[in-house]
């Protein structure tokens, strides 16, 4: 019997007792903590993989009504994040962390997310000095699933992706829920829980075509310069990954008891950045993502609700969110930018839906959220003045028992990359530091470690 | 040496003309002065049509005896043996005709058992068509009761309201009226354009020209369901002009010189045909973006029944009417175009509520080839 609690600690497990009851799974659980795949075991004996994801929203927050007064457990929820009430227990909130840019300029709506994703600040608007942290994590845990990662942009804009290897290799996002459905649950979907499995003969042919292409195009190398050779290398890597996926799909997929193919394709959602459309797209994509995770189609994902310079609109308002953060007067009585806060509350409403969707999805004897770690953040603290210090961040999920949740952590001015570093370590990356320049850190945020 | 006179003349001419050229290029062009035209054209496209009925909630005033008996009611009011016989021979209860015809196909051949419920209201929308004060019989019209005008002083004729006003389906919340409201703007067969030209003053103008055309373009709506003003609406030249008449505007309200016969193209409940109005009257209150008004006159009964039978055969149930008794009522209550030999009036007074939005009424360009368009659609 597994106790449905997040308060696992190694010490308790070793003692073999947990709140007075016997724990059915003990040491093997520990072994798995240390194994390469980083997956946890359920009572059924089949592996529950650990998943990693990111969630992004643009234009930060209004500190006055966002930052809780209390630190630690049982923190209060000020009005801008009141909507997180029911999911608070799954989250950790991080405020008052800094993003120093050293001598580089603060590139509005750019430096912040680049720093938080890659550990380094950019020197120009097309500079992405390092790969985003989901990439090494995908390398570590992305194998064995058909999709190495799934990226989503609720805005519907194909340029909205903060997952990248370099400025020239940005991982493209899904922009249509209908296409996502086709990709994940269309023709190529094999129900992991069906007793029969007939490998698609076409897969084999496809795979041999790819192998042939790989072989044949080696002759291109002869006449390429250094840079182009490197590009071709990356193309080959992509071809091989695709080959690997086809290989995987020729085998019976591992059982995933809570996998349930959605019965129908999502409805068409109106193109555009109206907050209602973005919310609808986010919801449809979240639902599909959660089921994809349950069906073990991927272990790594990136969800973007609004991009860093959010151009979301609201019916009746002549301006986009971004402009409003700059032009709206601070309300004399309330002391905040009312319209801007409306947009942010909408973002947190969608965030709450996202977290709740993970929390509702059963998995093993618990829920999907127990086996997930989501790194969520924005791009600045107060968008009006493009302040980087204090950029809000969250983690979601228990990461297979490795994380405590329900905490508000005050960074006390520490560098924000501590969280990115912590998160990578929790996911099992063998690194001992992360970040460059003033963002370099080798200190985890131990309060959240279980 | 003496140059010939011609040469001198020639060179002078050259000089003068060159000077003129120089002078001409440097002075500003003098444009022809034309009197600015103060006349303009107001274009409208008819967007919504509703019956010209006067209603109170739950029909308490106009239908004190309750709403119309339906086809089903009349069927079950027949003697059981008769019903069973019909059922055995022809099946469904709609097939009550002498040879098993659908009751809406031959309404004249069936006699409904239950009494018909006429409208009891004294008030209605409409127009004074017969010119009498009491609805008495005249050489051209049949005796009938007039209504008090719901929209003003005076008396109006609207016998079709008397027939239809207690039918559930034709009340403003009814199925038939609702369907009509959806269908009317949806199909280009119903596109009616109203061009008011020679307008000097949109509020008051003694003499304007009013032409009704058939259009052919869709009517898109805005995000919140309103009809979009300012659209271009092409005139469908395959259709003859529906009506051309003169009119006048007083305090922003247009009225027309009645039209003897106006034949409107018509699509109703998937069937196409025409709707013929005799003595067509029309008033329209102009607003910034559109207009609201009333169209009325005598509807030719045969034409009306042809379309009604075809259009509403399947909706006897959801519109809650019974064709035979309704047919009998229209024949009894018809008040216009009296046949001198039989004395039967062959047209019935009625009115429609009209809503319209402003549009550009676009006539085809000179290069337009009507025959080719008729054949190929471009």
């Amino acid at each position, binding site marked *: 019997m597994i106790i449905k609690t997040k308060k696992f600690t190694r010490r308790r497990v070793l003692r073999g007792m947990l709140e007075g009851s016997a724990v059915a799974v003990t040491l093997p659980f520990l072994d798995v903590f240390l194994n390469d795949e980083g997956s946890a075991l359920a009572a059924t004996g089949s592996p529950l993989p650990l998943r990693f994801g990111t969630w992004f929203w643009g234009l930060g927050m209004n500190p006055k009504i966002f930052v809780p007064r209390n630190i630690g457990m049982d923190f209060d929820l000020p009005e801008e994040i009141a909507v997180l009430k029911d999911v608070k227990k799954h989250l950790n909130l991080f405020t008052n962390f800094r993003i120093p840019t050293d001598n580089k300029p603060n590139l509005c709506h750019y430096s912040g997310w680049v720093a938080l994703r890659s550990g380094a600040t950019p020197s120009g608007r097309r500079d992405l000095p390092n790969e985003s942290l989901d990439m090494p994590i995908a390398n570590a845990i992305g194998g064995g699933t058909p999709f190495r990662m799934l990226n989503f942009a609720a805005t519907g804009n*194909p340029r909205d992706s903060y997952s990248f290897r370099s400025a020239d290799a940005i991982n493209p996002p899904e922009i249509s829920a209908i296409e996502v459905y086709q990709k994940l649950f269309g023709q190529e979907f094999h129900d992991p829980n069906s007793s029969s499995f007939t490998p698609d003969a076409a897969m084999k*042919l496809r795979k041999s075509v790819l192998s042939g292409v790989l072989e044949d195009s080696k002759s291109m190398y002869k006449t390429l310069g250094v840079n182009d050779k490197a590009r071709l290398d990356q193309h080959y890597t992509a071809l091989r990954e695709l080959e690997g996926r086809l290989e995987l799909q020729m085998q019976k997929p591992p059982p995933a008891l809570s996998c349930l193919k959605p019965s129908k394709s999502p409805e068409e959602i109106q193109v555009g950045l109206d907050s209602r459309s973005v919310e609808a797209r986010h919801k449809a994509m979240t639902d599909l993502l959660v089921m994809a995770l349950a069906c073990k189609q991927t272990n790594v994902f990136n969800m973007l609700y609004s991009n860093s310079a959010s151009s979301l609109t609201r019916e009746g308002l002549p301006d986009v969110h971004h402009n409003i953060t700059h032009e709206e007067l601070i309300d004399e009585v309330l002391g905040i930018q009312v319209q801007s806060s409306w947009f942010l509350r909408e973002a947190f409403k969608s965030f709450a839906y996202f977290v709740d969707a993970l929390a509702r999805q059963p998995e093993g004897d618990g829920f999907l959220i127990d086996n997930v770690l989501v790194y969520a953040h924005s791009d600045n603290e107060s968008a009006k003045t493009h302040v980087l210090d204090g950029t809000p961040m969250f983690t979601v999920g228990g990461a297979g028992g490795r994380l405590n949740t329900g905490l508000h952590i005050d960074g006390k001015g520490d560098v924000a990359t501590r969280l990115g570093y912590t998160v990578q370590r929790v996911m099992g990356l063998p690194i001992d530091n992360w970040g460059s320049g003033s963002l370099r850190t080798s200190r985890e945020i131990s309060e959240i470690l279980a | 040496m003496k140059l010939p006179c011609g040469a001198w003349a020639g060179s002078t001419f050259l000089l003068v003309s060159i000077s003129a050229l120089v002078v001409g290029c440097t002075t500003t062009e003098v444009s022809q002065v034309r009197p600015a035209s103060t006349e303009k054209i107001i274009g409208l496209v008819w967007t919504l049509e509703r019956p010209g009925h006067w209603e109170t909630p739950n029909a308490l005033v106009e239908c004190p005896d309750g709403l119309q008996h339906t086809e089903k009611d009349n069927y079950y009011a027949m003697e059981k043996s008769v019903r069973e016989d019909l059922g055995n021979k022809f099946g469904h209860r709609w097939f009550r005709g002498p040879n098993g015809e659908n009751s809406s196909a031959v309404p004249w051949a069936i006699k409904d058992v239950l009494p018909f419920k006429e409208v009891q209201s004294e008030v209605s929308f409409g127009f004074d068509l017969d010119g009498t004060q009491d609805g008495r019989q005249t050489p051209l019209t049949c005796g009938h009761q007039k209504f008090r005008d719901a929209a003003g002083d005076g008396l109006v004729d609207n016998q079709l309201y008397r027939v239809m006003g207690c039918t559930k389906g034709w009340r403003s919340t009814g199925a038939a009226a609702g369907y009509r409201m959806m269908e009317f703007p949806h199909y280009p067969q119903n596109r009616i354009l109203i061009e008011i030209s020679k307008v000097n003053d949109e509020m008051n103008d003694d003499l304007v020209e009013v032409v009704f055309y058939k259009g052919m373009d869709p009517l898109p709506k805005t995000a919140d369901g309103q009809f979009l003003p300012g659209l271009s609406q092409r005139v469908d030249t395959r259709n003859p002009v529906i009506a051309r008449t003169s009119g006048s505007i007083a305090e922003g309200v247009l009225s027309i010189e009645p039209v003897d016969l106006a034949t409107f193209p018509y699509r109703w409940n998937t069937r196409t045909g025409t709707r013929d109005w005799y003595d067509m009257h029309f008033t329209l209150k102009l607003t910034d973006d559109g207009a609201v008004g009333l169209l009325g006159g005598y509807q030719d009964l045969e034409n009306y029944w042809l379309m009604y039978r075809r259009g509403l055969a399947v909706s006897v149930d959801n519109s809650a009417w019974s064709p035979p008794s309704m047919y009998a009522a229209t024949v009894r209550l018809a008040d216009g175009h009296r046949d001198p030999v039989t004395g039967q009036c062959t047209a019935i007074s009625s009115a429609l509520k009209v809503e319209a939005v402003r549009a550009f009424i676009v006539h085809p360009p000179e290069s337009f080839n009507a025959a080719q368009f008729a054949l190929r659609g471009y």
Partner: protein
Amino acid sequence: MKFALFTLRLTILIIAAMVYSSAIASTTTERPHNEEPEVSGASPSMRLLSQSQYKNSIAAIFGPQISSNVRFSPVQRIGGLEAIGARSIIVTIGALEPLENSARMISAQIVSEANRDLLIPCQPSAAIKRDDNCAKIFLSRAGRLLFRRHLSDVELKNVVNVAGASAEQAGDFYDGLSQALAYLLISPKFLYIQENFEADPEQPNYWHLDGYSKASRLSFFLWDAAPDSRLLDAAERGDLSTQEGLHREVKRLLASPRLEQGVRAFFEDMLIVEAFDLLTKDPIIYPAFTSQAVTDAREQMLMTISDHLIAREGDYRDLFVTRNTFMSRALAVVYRVPAHVGPVDWVPFEFSENDHRGGLLTLVGFLARYSHPGRTSPTNRGRGLRETLLCQHVPDPPPNVNFELFENSTAERKTARQRLEAHSSNPICAGCHRLTDPLGLVLEKFDGAGQYRETENDAPIDTSGSVNRVPVSDAIELGETLHDDPALTSCLVSRVYSYGTGRELSNDDGHLLDYFDREFENSDYRFVDLLESTVTSDAFFKVEVDDDLLAMENRNDYQD
């Protein structure tokens, strides 16, 4: 007396003659001698096909009935053009996936019963078995057009083998052929336009693109598609290395109706037309600006450009004053004009003399695109104009800018001009804003959806402004002033050259661009002539080869 009279007449005649002859002379002034300067060229590139190039190539090779609905991942915009970003873009798994799907779907269509008789020139001896002969005939032709060069023996052998092995496995010749086609379509040799070079026979130590690479560069530039068979033939014969041969092919490409695709693709890149994909307006504030209007606004702009530049052979500068355009139903509501046009059609349209519109900047495609969802943005319009049409960089606003000065409309600040007054009065803001605002404010009588208005919040709109300190009073004058601005044409020239060669320009290219400027002027700013002078210049195919590249065994398979 008579003599005096005679002298007078003679003088008059002489004066007249002089006036006349000078009038004639001014129309036949000698063109200044324009010599192309030497440049060093750039390194050979490996550009990824763009989405439109992919689709156009498939349509041209296999026919328009083959649908290729693939969405490519976005490419970085470098030097103002995605064509340059294509040179460094890296294909990730996320970008490769849709390409693989597309390859399979296209192949399946080609071999389908509906298309196979048309597209496959031979029939297999038995449909259920492999037939290498027929496969070879088809695949060598298709491969040549797809790889844009003849296949080497090894390559051909490999692909025929794929067809054969797959046919055996699937028990169907056509299935096998479909796999072989997918193989070609997913190959980097199709997806990347790899450039190869050879020594210039006339100039030692100079290198230029080889014949096939020239054909590709020409065709992707002028037709936005892979070279057709004739162009490949010309490349194989060595025609593209001779002036005569090159000119002949260039003239053919420029005379073809396919030129329109190329011109469109160029302007779609230069004018960043992708922004239309996400353009929406507030439906309450601008109910007439429907999603159909967005699509039509984009199309109207491109149709106007290609009609003016190609069909009418117009002066490029006149694009900013022309009243000729095209109109659709959805746009007619926005422009508030009557248009005799069907629900999905277009008609040629001319703005009337007293209409306030004339030129590209008064089209909804420009006005609405550089505005906010519910109001105008003079700054954005000015910036869009500067950056995309004048190639002038406008710096980003500083991060610590205080916008409190710039409030929403209040009783005192009803119009945009009043609200932006802070930009011009505050010296910190004015530095950059005087680059943009005086341009954008001239267009203020066109609201955020491009609709005409006389007032804003009941206050009259003042449209005075300036272009580089030349005062202009309204949108028409703005177009006329821009018409005479040398930056307008030199920007186009530099973009054309950059786009065609796929590289950013450097200071070394200055003299070359001056040369092209003069050529453009000499041709009365005809765009097609600019294309011609660009592609037939010495510089266009020139390549700079560094030692590393030279040292490599730089012979491709097919060059053996």
